[in-house]
């Protein structure tokens, strides 16, 4: 216990002695909490939403319209990866799988994200439109989930709520800016919103699982979030002088992501995300 200033963390002590088993212990390990099968399924839905969106956003790094947006979209992706890690870690406690097992070694039908999150980046306006819907929904979701009777979910929600609030600011600012910018930026924003809106409805769909969990105070009923979502979107659209899509854009996509049915966009995303881990299982660096 000599002079603490002499400590060289990379000196004599081998990193082998670090107990990485506790790597992302979080609340679940602290309370010894193991998710039930229902709770694990619910956590997987939320974790997959975050993971898939983060993977898409990473594609923008070095390709965004300006350097600041490379940084912004990369930072948003990083927050989402953090949420996904916590949620998938918890989901894995039911079956003894790690967050990496769930991210890298599940196939497409085992992913539980809603269709919105797997829709392609498109142009920048499409990414902003998808980000707007996602972040307005996630702000409502995590605010409500903070009250969950499941302490682990409540803790993850309280942490995530602060971060998605900032993501929502980013999406709102760009929606207003693109809609009020040039004729071309406004045209693209309207197209982006039109192409995104068919995937809104699935986010607010209840099913037996969430009804069971909501009855115990664990989950938030997706349908209960719709009014808050609509009110916020109405405010943003009023500011941006935009209107809700009509005509061919007013249709509702079939959805089914929560049951493992996906659009053609998820497969290529997973292939890229998983290829390294599958080519070298167990590798670390």
């Amino acid at each position, binding site marked *: *216990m000599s002079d*603490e*200033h002499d*400590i*060289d*963390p*990379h*000196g*004599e*002590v081998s*990193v082998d*002695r*670090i*107990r990485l088993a*506790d790597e*992302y*212990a*979080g*609340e679940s*390990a*602290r309370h010894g909490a193991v998710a039930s099968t229902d709770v694990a399924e619910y956590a997987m839905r939320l974790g997959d939403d975050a993971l898939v969106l983060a993977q898409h956003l990473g594609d923008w790094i070095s390709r965004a319209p300006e350097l*600041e947006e490379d*940084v*912004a979209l*990369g*930072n*948003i*992706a*990083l*927050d*989402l*990866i*953090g*949420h996904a*890690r*916590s949620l998938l870690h918890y989901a894995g406690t039911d079956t003894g799988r790690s967050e990496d097992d769930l991210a890298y070694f599940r196939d497409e039908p085992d992913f539980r994200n809603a269709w919105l999150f797997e829709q392609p980046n498109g142009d920048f306006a499409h990414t902003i439109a998808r980000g707007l819907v996602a972040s307005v929904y996630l702000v409502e979701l995590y605010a409500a989930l903070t009250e969950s009777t499941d*302490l682990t979910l*409540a*803790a*993850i929600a*309280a*942490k*995530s709520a*602060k*971060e998605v*609030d*900032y993501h929502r*600011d*980013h999406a*709102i*600012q760009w929606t207003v800016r693109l809609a009020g910018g040039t004729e071309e930026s406004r045209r693209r924003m309207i197209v982006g919103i039109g192409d995104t809106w068919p995937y809104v409805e699935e986010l607010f769909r209840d099913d037996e699982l969430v009804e069971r969990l909501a009855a115990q105070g664990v989950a938030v009923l997706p349908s209960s979030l719709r009014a808050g979502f609509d009110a*916020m979107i109405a*405010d*943003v659209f009023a*500011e941006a002088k935009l209107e809700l899509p009509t005509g061919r854009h007013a249709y509702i996509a079939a959805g089914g992501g929560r049951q493992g049915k996906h659009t053609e966009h998820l497969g290529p995303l997973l292939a890229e995300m998983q290829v390294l881990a599958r080519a070298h299982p167990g590798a670390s660096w």
Partner: protein
Amino acid sequence: MVTARPSTSSATQARPLPIDPAARRAWDIAATVTDPEIPVLTIEDLGVLRSVEVEDGGAVHVELTPTYSGCPAMDAMRDDVVLALTHAGYADVDVKLVLAPAWTTDWMSEDGKQKLREYGIQAPTGHAAVRGGPVRVRMAVKCPRCNSLNTREIARFGSTSCKALYECLDCLEPFDYFKVL
């Protein structure tokens, strides 16, 4: 088991209670670990170090809380805590990351804020606000170099999760701002 935990009063949120010497000694060692991306700040200054417990047998349990969910510096800080304590002679050290209560810039010490400013990063201004509607009202951010309030935000996201990028319209220097969370 003895525990050193920050007191709950807001003025000393990031400070340990001066209680049992064993826990306090381990706390003081863990508290020397710095943020690899902002090396002037210790994890104690940041409010990231939440509790240190020392069992009668000498096993140490440390709790850290992440600043941002995906912050890659957390892994380095966790490893450095284990290494610092192991190096100081504790054979059995484990570190847990805890999410609740969620970290806030309110936990950053006044010392830490001063060190940040001297380093050229403006410290969080004001306290974490309870947010309501879509309209954000933000306080002016002071230039850490010339103290001018005549500054503007260049980008809402900066070089790390915790920062935004500003520029001073008087001394014309760009600077990082540690965002209120």
